[in-house]
């Protein structure tokens, strides 16, 4: 591949990194703020003057916060709910998206319209009727309302996969069918490997949404041993004030798996071994 920069490469590289780093500064601000607050004493969190840096640094609130909250239990519960949600969403949404993108069907446009319209009614409105439904099923204070629906496809991601597969050359799928593959096999052996970036994307988003979801756990879970991390952290938000000195350290700990996942998942985005990967397009 040709390199557009030629001999100015090094200067451009430094300039590039400088530019992007300056751009990135406001984006790293929340994390820096959370870290600073997590290591501050309560006096420094709640009074003027508000200093950026803790003086002194204290890790005591990590320990105290951990004791106040049943962190290991909440972590386990979050992992449980998130893993199942991930599995269910990835497989069901990708297969349905694949079907919409590559297979014919009478009434397909109507069905796709229906799919999209399910996204358009705000979830707040269906919250109570849905709770009534699950209450009649006896699923309240269990994980079932959180973990079962993802196995029936998430319309946002069906749409994403559909766009993704529709953007690929149909020749890839046709050649498989000529070779005698039925669509499910095409999906498994051809489409999924090609969809690695989309899968990684959906996986990251689903993980984050499930990890941070508090509305679902709030409504459906009642006893604390079932609480997920996101719900457990809300216990620090009192009616009169929020206990930042414990919330920030614990929220930071809860954040780490997500950041780690994103970091690792990037290798799946940008492997470049897929047919016709594009590199260095800028």
């Amino acid at each position, binding site marked *: 591949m040709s390199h557009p920069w030629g001999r100015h490469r090094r200067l451009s590289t430094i300039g590039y990194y400088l530019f992007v780093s300056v751009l990135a500064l406001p984006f790293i601000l929340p994390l820096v703020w959370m870290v600073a607050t997590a290591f501050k004493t309560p006096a420094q969190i709640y009074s003027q003057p508000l200093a950026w840096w803790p003086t002194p640094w204290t890790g005591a609130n990590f320990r105290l916060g951990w004791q106040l909250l049943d962190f290991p239990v909440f972590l386990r519960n979050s992992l449980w709910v998130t893993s199942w949600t991930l599995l269910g969403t990835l497989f069901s949404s990708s297969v349905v998206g694949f079907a919409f993108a590559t297979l014919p069907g009478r009434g397909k446009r109507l069905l796709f319209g229906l799919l999209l319209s399910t996204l358009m009614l705000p979830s707040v409105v269906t919250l109570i009727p849905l709770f009534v439904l699950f*209450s009649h099923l006896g699923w309240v204070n269990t994980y079932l309302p959180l973990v079962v629906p993802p196995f029936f496809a998430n319309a946002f991601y069906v749409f994403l996969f559909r766009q993704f597969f529709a953007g690929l050359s149909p020749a890839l799928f046709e050649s498989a069918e000529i070779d005698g593959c039925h669509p499910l096999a095409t999906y498994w052996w051809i489409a999924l490997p090609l969809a690695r970036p989309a899968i990684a994307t959906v996986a990251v988003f689903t993980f984050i949404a499930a990890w941070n979801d508090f509305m679902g756990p*709030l409504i459906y879970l009642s006893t604390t041993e079932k609480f997920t991390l996101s719900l457990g952290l809300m216990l620090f938000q*009192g009616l009169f004030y929020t206990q930042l000195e414990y919330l920030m350290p614990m929220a930071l700990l809860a954040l780490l798996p997500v950041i780690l996942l994103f970091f690792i998942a990037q290798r799946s985005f940008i492997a470049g071994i897929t047919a016709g990967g594009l590199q260095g397009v800028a």
Partner: protein
Amino acid sequence: MRPFYRTLLICLCIASFVGACTPIQPATSPGAAVIELRLAVALTPQELASFQPALEALDAAHPEWSVVLEVIPQQNVIEKLNTQLAANDLPDVIRVQGIQVQQWIRQNAFLDLAPYIQQNQVDLADFFPGPLDQFRWQEQLWGLPDTAAPEVVFYNKTMFNAAGLAYPTDEWTYDDMRQAALQLTLDDQGRNATDPAFTPETIVQWGWNGGLTYFWQRHLVRGWGGDFCANADCTLMNFTKPETVAAVEWWVSLVQDDHATLYAPYDGSQTGVPGDPFISGQAAMGYNGFFAVGQLNSMGSIDYDVVQPLQGADGQRYTPLSTNGYVIAATSAQPEAAWALTQALLEPAFLEAVWGKPGHAVPARRTAAASVIAPARAPANQQAIVAAMEYGEVFKPYTVGAFAAYGQTVELFTQANKGEMAVPEALQAIETAANAALADDRNE
């Protein structure tokens, strides 16, 4: 592809393994005599640490029950209870926050406790009148309070020392406070508000923490003989009585003319720190609820003490208190057992051990209230807090329309305080807006 799916599969296996190792909660024991009661509370982790062991001891002492403790984060109680109510799935006993409880009482979500109180000869006189009033509607009692948190005057001893002023006393009046506040309001050059060279744009310390900035602060006008409420449950409001107007003008001039207090105390727009200005170390005095004691003690950076709320022109004190209490769901399948649990949770010994001694809140019963005083804990004058329980009143209005009324009127108060609207005109607008929002509650 394979490493990714392999990783996912491994995570799932771990999660399955972990989940499988989770001890399964035993279902209600097969003995038919054991009644399962669901008790819902909304507590912070510290309060849970006191409450949960005591509840377990209570449960163990009553083998005829099995209590399942449900916990709701404090800021989400309305969502959770409304959802459960719609599905007829309310817990048997619920510990509710005072200002929220009336909206459900008026939907008949809870049991009338009068028969139980009479039958068991509960001594209602032992409860402070203010918290008890929170659970009354149509001459009946729909719940019983367990704790309350009154507002008292907090003052910063360091700031008083620096200004060379004598500390507030339990006998202080509003005029005493005003005089002191003027001398305690400092700009960045250390000049106080009585100084001709004082620059209000650069204030770094205010004398008092907040002016009259929202409509629930009727205690701030009572001392002048005014009141915002025109009927018993405050679903009809009156902001234009002459005494009320005079009181509001007193407060507005404290903000506008003397600059001794803030027009936006809690959102941080004037102070730079969200939250109460006294707690952030930017106000020398102010009314604060009991929760401030816990927060200030954990910060440990402010040398403070409290005195009883200020006396009005009539020599009386008026202060609000927020309450918590227990209600029994109307749809509970075992009301007798639910009542027995409630009674046990309201025993003075339980209140002392769980709320008073750890210092979470003041028990709402006279026989247990003094337990909140702990000489080893700041502030020194904790007696003032217990004294305030006698005359403290709940926030009104407390119907569901109150929240909308609050939203529609808070801007108007700000405009009056900043001088953008004349006080009588602003009060008239506030009255119109508030009564419109409360109309549905008034007509039931």
